[in-house]
């Protein structure tokens, strides 16, 4: 059983911060992930920067470009995860666009994930139609492929997506890109109830989640809340981004 499978057997509130690898500095990610875990993060998503991040709003776009300018690559992310794993057991999922993974090759990429201790992979531009080869190989190697569903995904499709994913799916909260505003709570609750009724796996929710209240609310209606843009935004202009992130995660977790 991998760390993600274990985590989602526990019926507790879950906070999942997203950190762009190599932002704000090339070497920041090791300290940031460890600090996030110590401050109460239940799982961490590490964003693989990409030149053309189509599903991201301006905040994550900028962090991604900065990370690339800093020299971040997929290979460097794996090296940093090795450092992270010496210090924490927090479940780690990589999140990124498909092309860098395709370029490295599914087999090489997944073998690296296994050997450094990455537990899951989220690829927002790899939908059900194209995802089978990657997902089957990932599952065979014990890495959880975390597929996405959206508010306009039909029930039957949610079933199929979660069936292929196997361990966990990621429900995008809105029709939109990262950092957008949330829809009304009524509409969200209807949607999340629909995901609950149709998904054969646990599911986390992300996009537009930014406050402690959000984290509590989304944990009531799902199995965990992902916070991305507001964590990245919170680092902008801070002299000590690690400290700033620790503080924010404690607030989001309700520990302050």
């Amino acid at each position: 059983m991998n760390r993600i499978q274990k985590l989602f057997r526990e019926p507790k509130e879950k906070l999942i911060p997203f950190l762009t690898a190599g932002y704000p500095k090339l070497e920041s990610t090791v300290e940031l992930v460890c600090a996030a875990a110590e401050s109460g993060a239940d799982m961490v998503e590490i964003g693989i920067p990409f030149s053309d991040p189509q599903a991201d709003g301006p905040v994550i776009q900028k962090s991604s470009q900065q990370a690339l300018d800093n020299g971040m690559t997929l290979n460097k992310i794996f090296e940093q995860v090795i450092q992270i794993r010496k210090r924490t057991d927090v479940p780690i999922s990589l999140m990124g666009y498909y092309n860098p993974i395709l370029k490295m090759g599914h087999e090489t990429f997944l073998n690296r994930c296994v050997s450094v201790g990455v537990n899951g992979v989220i690829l927002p531009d790899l939908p059900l139609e194209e995802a089978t080869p990657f997902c089957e190989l990932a599952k065979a190697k014990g890495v959880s492929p975390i597929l996405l569903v959206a508010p306009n995904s039909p029930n039957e499709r949610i079933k199929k997506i979660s069936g292929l994913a196997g361990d966990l799916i990621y429900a995008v909260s809105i029709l939109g890109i990262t950092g957008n505003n949330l829809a009304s709570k009524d509409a969200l609750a209807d949607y999340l109830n629909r995901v609950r009724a149709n998904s054969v796996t646990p599911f986390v929710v992300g996009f537009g989640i930014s406050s402690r209240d959000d984290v509590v609310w989304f944990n009531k209606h799902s199995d965990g809340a992902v916070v991305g843009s507001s964590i990245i935004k919170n680092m902008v202009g801070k002299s000590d981004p690690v400290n700033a992130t620790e503080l924010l995660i404690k607030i989001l977790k309700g520990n302050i």
Partner: protein
Amino acid sequence: MKNKFKDYNLPDARGHFEKFGGKFVPETLIPALEELERYYDEAKTDNAFQQELNHLLKHYSGRKTALYFADRISKELGFNVWLKREDLNHTGAHKINNALGQILLANRMGKKRIIAETGAGQHGVATATVAARFGLECIVYIGKEDIRRQKLNVFRMNLLGAEVRPVSSGSMTLKDATNEAIRDWVTNVESTYYLIGSTVGPHPYPMLVRDFQSVIGIETKQQFANQSNRELPDRLVACIGGGSNAMGLFYPFLKDDVKIVGVEAAGKGLESGEHAATLTKGDFGVLHGAASTLLQNEDGQVTLPHSISAGLDYPGIGPEHSYLNESGRVKYFSATDEEALDAFQWLSEKEGILPALESAHALAYLRQENNGIEPDEHVVVCLSGRGDKDVHTVADALGINL
């Protein structure tokens, strides 16, 4: 090879041209792509739709466009050059063929808001034009770098009532404008029709843009048979950015015994690192919703292309071109900025036609030493657009202050 293409019917039901194509998009867009596929399948076999489209192509855009025998350059080159005059279309390029087809689909789907990306501005102008014609809201994304190169087209879009949104992310060119259009579409998917301008993007776009552009090849076939004493030309030539004018010309000829050549932009030279020669120098990858060929580095990051022509300045290429390249059915060459500039002036002086800088790449191929063209061959070149939009760029390159 002929046999393989006798019954050519790609893409398959999943939108694949063998390993190329497909749908690599966020989940939110999948229902929209499925809806588009459904409407397009219906429209294809609906006589009323086809009649309305044909009526618009004829009376609004002015088709058929001429197939013109270019006498003087033919004499100079020692083979017969026919120009398919897409520059004579309303709005000055082949882009209107696709824009008219897609705006009718948008209408059929009840979408009131149209978005588009543009590089050279020709697709933006075509989209703004058809949106005005049908009274629909129109937003066009264009890179800041391209705004500088294509001021005239930006103003034309404004005159046509479109909102032009400058894109300042990434390289500030066509690929970034496309990213921004996709972000808009993800956010406004229920109200918005994304009118893609080339044979790129997720299925069904590469197929439907090709189909709407095929009027170029269908007309060429009839006109060539009528105007020459031959059944088929020996060779077809077209420039390739995303590849829509080329697919439009090539597609009706794929099963025929005709040599086919696509010409990419070699920018400052294939070895300079500053070019847009995707098939010549790129490799397999996924960008803007499709698996195809990409200019990318060893980490799978998309690299910045370069071409003097904004319409070819794109690091990807339509998936069907990747397939036609791999299968060997179409041969792909490239022409540099300099060769294109020379060809631009050459056609202007010899035939009295200012070609778009994009089309000038196809013309430049005719003058290359190792192009393989035999004496007395009949070669059809797609003159995809007019060159008026490029006079500032050409003047700059020639060191002339207008």
